[in-house]
C-alpha cells in the first residue's frame, strides 16, 4: 500500500495484488479496520503533491519564460514598442502585420526586405535539405556497412564537425572558401577550373552555406544509422530471394523502412532553416552581405529588433516565424500518413 504511490502505472492503486499482499501479511482482519480508506486517499494526494513539487521548476519556468512572454509578445506585436523609449509605446493595431503583408506582396508602404528574406530562406532550404539529407543517408549507409573496417572510428569522424562551435567552423569555412587563399579554389584551379568568389557572390553564397551545412550532418547521420539498424534483415533476404539488386533493395526496403526517420529529419532541418542565424550573421558581416543574399528570415528579425530596435514589428515577425514553423510541422505530420511507413500501431 505504501509502495503504490511509487508505482503509478501498475494497476495496483486500488485493488491490485499490492493491497492483497499487504492484506495477507497482516491477516484478514485488516479489512474490517475502519482506517484504510482515508489513509489511502491521503497517500494518493501526497503522491500528487510530490509530483507537482518535482515538476514545479518547469511549471514556474513555463509560466515565467514561456507563457507570459508569449502573451506579452503577442500584445507587443500590436504596438510600436522601442526599448530605448518604452514609455512612448503606442497601440497601433494591425499596422505591423499590415507592413509585413504589404512587404510580402510587394506593395508600397510595406517592409522592403521581408519578401527577399523569405525567398532567401526558402531557396536555401530547397538546396540544403536534399543535399544534406542525401549526404547524411549515404554516410549512414557507408558507416553501417559490414564491409567497412573501423566503423566506429568513421562514425566518430563524420560526427565530429558537429562538435566544433558554429562560430569556429564558420571561420574555418570562410578561410577554406576564400577566393584566392582558400584550398577549395586552389584545388579547383589544379583541376583547371576557375572557382567563384564563393562567399562574396550573390549566386554562390547559398551553395557555400550548403557545403558548410554538410558539417552539420552528425545528428542526422546517427538517426539514419539507428533507422538502418532497425530494419529487419529478413526483408533484405526476401528481396535477394526475389533477385533484387542493390538499387532495388534500396528503393523497396531501405527507403520505405527509413521514411519515418527521413520525415523527422526533413522537419528538423526545415525548422532549422527558418531559424538559421549564426552563419548568416558572420558571413553577411551583420548586414546581409553580399547584397542581401544572407538576409535570412531569422537574421531579418534580429536586425529589426536589435539593430533598428523596432521590437513591436520584430514581435510580429516572430509570430510569423512561429506560424510558419507550426504550419510546416502540421503539414508534414498530416502528409506523413500517405508516405511514411509505420510498423504496426503500438510501440
Amino acid at each position, binding site marked *: 500500500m505504501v509502495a503504490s504511490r511509487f508505482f503509478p502505472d501498475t494497476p495496483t492503486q486500488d485493488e491490485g495484488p499490492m493491497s492483497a499482499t499487504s492484506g495477507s501479511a497482516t491477516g484478514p482482519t485488516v479489512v474490517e479496520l475502519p482506517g484504510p480508506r482515508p489513509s489511502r486517499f491521503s497517500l494518493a494526494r501526497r503522491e500528487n503533491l510530490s509530483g507537482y513539487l518535482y515538476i514545479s521548476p518547469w511549471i514556474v519556468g513555463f509560466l515565467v*519564460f514561456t507563457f507570459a*512572454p508569449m502573451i506579452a509578445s503577442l500584445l507587443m506585436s500590436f504596438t510600436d514598442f522601442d526599448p530605448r523609449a518604452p514609455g512612448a509605446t503606442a497601440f497601433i493595431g494591425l499596422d505591423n502585420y499590415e507592413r509585413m503583408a504589404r512587404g510580402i506582396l510587394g506593395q508600397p508602404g510595406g517592409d522592403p526586405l521581408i519578401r527577399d528574406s523569405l525567398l532567401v530562406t526558402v531557396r536555401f532550404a530547397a538546396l540544403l535539405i536534399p543535399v544534406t539529407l542525401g549526404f547524411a543517408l549515404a554516410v549512414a549507409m557507408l558507416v553501417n556497412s559490414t564491409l567497412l573496417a573501423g566503423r566506429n572510428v568513421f562514425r566518430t569522424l563524420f560526427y565530429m564537425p558537429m*562538435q566544433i*562551435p558554429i562560430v569556429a567552423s564558420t571561420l574555418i569555412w570562410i578561410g577554406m572558401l576564400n577566393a584566392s587563399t582558400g584550398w577549395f579554389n586552389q584545388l579547383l584551379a589544379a583541376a583547371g577550373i576557375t572557382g567563384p568568389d564563393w562567399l562574396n557572390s550573390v549566386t554562390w553564397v547559398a551553395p557555400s552555406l550548403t557545403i558548410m551545412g554538410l558539417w552539420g550532418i552528425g545528428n542526422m547521420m*546517427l538517426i539514419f544509422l539507428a533507422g538502418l539498424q532497425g530494419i529487419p534483415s529478413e526483408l533484405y533476404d526476401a528481396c535477394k530471394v526475389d533477385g533484387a539488386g542493390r538499387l532495388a533493395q534500396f528503393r523497396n526496403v531501405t527507403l520505405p523502412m527509413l521514411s519515418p526517420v527521413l520525415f523527422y529529419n526533413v522537419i528538423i532541418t526545415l*525548422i532549422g532553416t527558418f531559424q538559421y542565424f549564426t552563419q548568416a*550573421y558572420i558571413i553577411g558581416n551583420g548586414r546581409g552581405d553580399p547584397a542581401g543574399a544572407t538576409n535570412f528570415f531569422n537574421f531579418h528579425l534580429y536586425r529589426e*529588433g536589435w539593430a533598428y530596435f523596432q521590437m513591436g514589428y520584430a514581435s510580429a515577425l516572430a509570430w510569423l516565424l512561429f506560424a510558419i514553423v507550426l504550419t510546416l510541422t502540421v503539414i508534414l505530420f498530416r502528409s506523413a500518413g500517405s508516405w511514411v511507413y509505420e510498423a504496426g500501431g503500438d510501440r
Partner: protein
Amino acid sequence: MSVLNPPMVRPMSANSPLRRRMRRFTAVSGVTLLAFMIVSAFLLPLLFMVTTSFKDKSQLTALGAPWYPAAPETFEYEGGTYPLYQVPMPDGTTRTLALYQPGRESSVWIDPAAPEAGTIDWEGRWRVLAPGYRFELYTDNFVTAWNALNFPRLLFNTLMIAGIGTIGAVTSAICVAYGFSRFRFPGRNGLFLLLLSTIILPMQVTLIPTYAVFSMMGWTGTWLPLIVPYFFGNAYNVFLLRQYFLTIPRELDEAAMIDGAGPFRILVSVIVPQAKAAIVAVSLFHFFWAWNEFYLPLIYLQGNQSAEPLSTAIARFNGVYSQEPTLIQAAAIMAMIIPVVVFFIAQRAFMRGIVFTGVEK
C-alpha cells in the same frame, strides 16, 4: 528452396573458404578505402585550419609556396645569408641555388651543395623564380590572437556561463523528469505534452518581452539572462532523462522504499546513480550547446565586451581581422579545441545520448 538458389549449386571450388575470405578481404579494403577518401575530403578544412594557423601571412600569397607551413630557405655563406631559388638551367634541369648577387637580367648564384665550386652565372630574371621552402611553424599567430582576444578572459567567461547553466539545467531536468516519470497526478500527461510542445516554439517568440524585462531589471550586460532561464527545466533535457528514468526498474525504488527511503532519497540514491549515463550525456549536450550559443550573448552582452563568451568575441575578431586569415584560423583553433578534445574523450557517452534522444523523439 535454398537448394534452388544459384549460388548454392555452384561448384565448391568457386566458393571455397579461402576464396570467400579473399573476396571479402577485397570488398572490405575497397569500402574502407572509399570511406577513408570521403572522410579525408570531409575533414580537409581542419587540415587547412591547422596549416594556415601556423603559416606566416606572406606565405598565403607567395608564388610556389607549399601547402604546409614553411619559410623561404636560405643558405649561409661566408658570413652572409642568401635566399634559395629553384633555378632552371640551360641544360633543362632545375637546381636549387643560392642567390649570391642579384641582377635585373642576369644573376650570380652559389650551389649550396658545393659552395667550394665557386659562383655560377645565370641569364634570366630571378624575380620570377620560385623560392625554395623548408618546413617551419610560425607560432606568432597564436600569440597575436591570444593577446588580441584576451583569450584567458574569454575562456573564463565561457566556462562560467556554460558551467553554471549546465548545473542549473541538469539539476532542474532531473527533478522535473523524476516528477513526470515516477508520480501520478492529475494533468500529468497534458502537462508533459505541453512541455514537449515547447520544443517547436521558436525562441524568438518569447525573446523580445524577455529581453525587455531583463533590460528593465538591469540584467543586460551580465551573465544572468544567459544562465537563470536554464534553472527551470528545458524540454529536451527533461524528455531525454524522463525516457531514461522510465527504463529503470521500479523494483529498485521499491527496495529502497522498504528500507524506509522517501521520494527524494530514492531520487538521489537510486535514480541518479542508475541514470548516470543519461545525466552525463545531458550535461555534455547542455554544456556544449551553451558553449556554442551565439544569438543570446550577441543580444544580451552587446554593451559589455568584458563579459563576452568565446562565440561572439571570435565573431567580432573575424570582423576586425578579416584580412588576416592566419590569425582567424588560429582563433578558430582556440575556440574549438576544448569542445573537440572533450568530445573525443567522452565520445561514447555522447553518441549514446544522441542516439537515445534522436530515435525516441
